């Protein structure tokens, strides 16, 4: 077996040193009734060629998003990732290292985490960011729990235009902690009144921008209302390319920003692994979940990096920790960081402008299709259209024609007839005019 270096002779010699007659003797603490004598009912080992052939055949039974026109968004976006990103993250020193618990031999990981934290803080307009969470929805749930700790209150208001998976994840993760969630009704208008839902026990209001339906929100006034009532504002961002075009959440009163970083450097990966972004104000840092990398010096006074403030974390605080998170999304944070480093200020702004321009062109084109209406007044690179027929059926029909038309809202929010005809459509720098024409033509056909 190509991954196992020990030979039969090695094993015999090692057993002799141990003083055991057989390897099974080493397993004697396992109750005899539970020991497996033979092999389990699974195939035996295979060579690289055979495994690659089988896995390639499985992959071929999928249609890659990039194999034709694709306008899918809804919290995961297809962007072009520069070739340098994947090359760099496959360096052994990044790919096959552990969490940097021994800083003297982990300065590479620590430095990119410090850079990642700085990039995320800059993009979100916040003072500090952590070294990543699993992904956006769990980061949002952690933000709600952090707001509860900071305010010592027990309620949270979740916007009706927050991504449904995020709403459900927050509900799941808080369901046994005595929190009461006020789930505002689904809102596609972009004009919901969340301030009136704040009570004396509201720890935070959670609002997404661009929201699930694509609408943009200026959260400045809502932040003011939250703060006057002693509550915090959590802003969720699922499309980080929007940071290159839109006013930062930190400049619109956010206390905590939770988000999904997938768009920058990570790729679609059928939903994971992704990278959760988490940023806040400096004075809240001791209630933050997750790892933090800090600057320090070594014994010779040279600048160095180290994991810090770990007394918040589970391996020190156990049941009193700010979170149970241990493994995070380090390598995806590196992908994100490399992509942002390659783009730089000018590149990210240009990328964001290209995304917005593509979405505006697509919206104008679709609005001209009979039976299709663009719902949004504002959007970044994704918007909602209302069709004359159920969106799910339209998407299936177009998929058979090779077009991934978008995300039917009913897939995430079922059983609401008012939403059945709504389709989320995203356009990025990867979408060509010919693809947009194909979508417009396809929608003309299915709504006719």
């Amino acid at each position: 077996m190509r991954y196992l270096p020990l030979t039969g002779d090695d094993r015999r010699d090692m057993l002799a040193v141990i003083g055991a007659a057989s390897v099974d003797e080493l397993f004697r603490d396992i109750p005899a009734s539970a020991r497996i004598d033979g092999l389990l009912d699974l195939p035996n080992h295979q060579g690289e060629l055979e495994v690659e052939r089988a896995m390639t055949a499985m992959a071929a039974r999928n249609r890659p998003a990039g194999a034709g026109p694709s306008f899918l968004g809804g919290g995961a976006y297809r962007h072009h990732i520069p070739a340098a990103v994947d090359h760099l993250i496959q360096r052994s020193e990044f790919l096959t290292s552990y969490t940097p618990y021994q800083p003297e031999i982990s300065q590479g990981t620590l430095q990119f985490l410090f850079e990642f934290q700085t990039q995320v803080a800059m993009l979100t307009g916040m003072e500090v960011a952590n070294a990543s969470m699993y992904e956006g929805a769990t980061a949002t749930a952690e933000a709600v729990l952090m707001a509860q700790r900071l305010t010592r209150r027990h309620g949270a208001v979740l916007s009706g235009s927050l991504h449904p998976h995020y709403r459900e994840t927050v509900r799941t993760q808080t369901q046994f902690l005595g929190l009461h969630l006020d789930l505002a009704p689904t809102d596609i208008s972009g004009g919901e009144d969340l301030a009136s839902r704040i009570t004396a026990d509201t720890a935070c209001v959670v609002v997404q921008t661009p929201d699930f339906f694509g609408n943009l929100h200026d959260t400045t006034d809502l932040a003011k209302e939250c703060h006057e009532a002693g509550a915090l504002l959590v802003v969720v961002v699922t499309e980080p390319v929007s940071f290159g075009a839109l006013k930062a959440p930190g400049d619109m009163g956010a206390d905590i920003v939770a988000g999904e970083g997938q768009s920058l450097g990570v790729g679609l990966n059928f939903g994971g692994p992704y990278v959760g972004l988490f940023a806040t104000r400096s004075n809240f840092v001791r209630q933050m979940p997750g790892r933090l990398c800090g600057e320090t010096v070594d014994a010779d006074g040279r600048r160095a990096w180290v994991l810090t403030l770990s007394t918040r974390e589970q391996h020190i605080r156990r049941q009193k920790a700010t979170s149970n998170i241990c493994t995070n999304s380090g390598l995806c944070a590196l992908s994100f960081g490399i992509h942002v480093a390659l783009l730089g200020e000018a590149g990210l702004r240009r990328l964001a402008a290209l995304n917005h321009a593509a979405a505006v062109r697509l919206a104008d084109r679709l609005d001209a299709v009979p039976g299709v209406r663009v719902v949004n007044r504002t959007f970044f690179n994704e918007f909602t259209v209302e069709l004359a027929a159920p969106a799910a059926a339209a998407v299936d029909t177009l998929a058979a024609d090779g077009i991934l038309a978008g995300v039917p809202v009913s897939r995430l929010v079922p059983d609401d007839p008012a939403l059945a005809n709504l389709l989320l459509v995203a356009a990025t720098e990867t979408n060509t005019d010919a693809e947009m024409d194909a979508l417009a033509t396809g929608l003309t056909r299915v709504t006719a």
Partner: protein
Amino acid sequence: MTDQAAHQAAHRGLDLEEPLLFDFGETGRSGVDLPDPEPVASRLGGLERTAPIGLPGLSEPQVIRHFVRISRNNYSIDGNLYPLGSCTMKHNPRLNEKVARLPGFADLHPLQPESTIQGALEAIHTLAHWLRTLTGMPVVAMPPAAGAHGELCGLMAIRAAHDAAGQNRTRVLIPESAHGTNPATAALCGYEVDPIPGNARGRIDVAAIREKLGPDVAGIMLTNPNTLGLFESQVIEVADAIHDAGGYFYCDGANLNAIVGKARPGDLGVDAIHINLHKTFSTPHGGGGPGAGPVAFSEALAPYAPLPLVVRGDDGFRLVEHREGQGAASFGRMRAFHGQMGMFTRALTYMQSHGADGLRQVAEDAVLSANYLLESLKDDLSAPFDGPCMHEALFDEAFLQGTGISVLDFAKAMIDEGYHPMTVYFPLVVHGAMLTEPTETESKQSLDRFIAVLRKLAAAAKAGDVNRFRDAPRHTFRRRVDETAAARNPVLRWTPPTPDAQAAE
């Protein structure tokens, strides 16, 4: 001198100093060429970002050089043995990387119509089948993103099961030797943690469990093999006692590598166990993640598994994304989308490479290697418990008594000898614990070199060569870093130099 000049002056051979991106990037430059955006009527509603973000601009060669240089300051399993106990730092086969990057897996959007993702659902379903077979448990939940997330998944199912039965149970039993994630997870489910002491043999006595049991106990979280590297020999009695009291048995599966193919958790009375794909099934650790933590459930807990489920029907594979059908009693969704697909394809590739026979050999070689270390080093270092151990050999600080050298000093001296230290000061129940996990992917020569180095260091410690330890590491890119200063005055991001500071330079 500017920061950058100071850095450049400090190169030493191949140890190249590298400033932060922010120290040398310039606005205006970009490493990505993009076309001019077509002018359009903005739909941003007046929310345009006008303030600068502050990101530095760099060309592609600058970015490549930056990350290549800093990468060289990392230890890695590709470079040398990585004996971190509890972490299972085994070889990461490159075929797994290649397969995960096939466009048919990597370039799939999670919300594509089911007709376009049959191969992806098949991959998830097949991986779940391998995990069911290896654990001997009927259902595997795929969404959890990591081990701790899997713990949350398991405990939520336990809580949901008790709630469905109208039972208000408030206490979870957790051995004192447990990973910190166990009590932290129990707290997230609203449970009170009741610690269980271990016995002199490093195990949990069923008598100690029975003493704690009552109608308010929701369950136990037990790591097996445990964090001391030992198999809990009374595990079946423990499971029976928990079940008799109406509780559930959560097993922390961090150490599954020791028993894969040799014993199945389902035969030990386990109701839920998370499987760290980044440990036992070799998806790369990536400097701290991402991982994946699928959870195998017994029949009793299966109905409460999180959404979504992948099911096989007459006309292909299907996702159950809402509370309906088999998912009607689910405790809910615990993340966006379906799971860590990029980890699934790697783990499935790894499993197929090894097969039933190879995976069994994995456990045997991992356990053999750990026992070889334990036997070879127990007289030079000190071991708190007799063998045989499972896939980790535990040493403690007793051999350093009276030397004035701490376990931390010893660990740092290992770095000077070219080795990443083992896990130190964990588990907490052993003074100066040194938890050593060689894994099955080290050759005997590699193990022998490691043994020789540890013997040499132990002899030096006992001979009173104190400075060699207290000053360590001396041969690294950075010497011992000041962790106290970092925590006292946290600097967690780069900030632009103030005009005053620039003037002073």
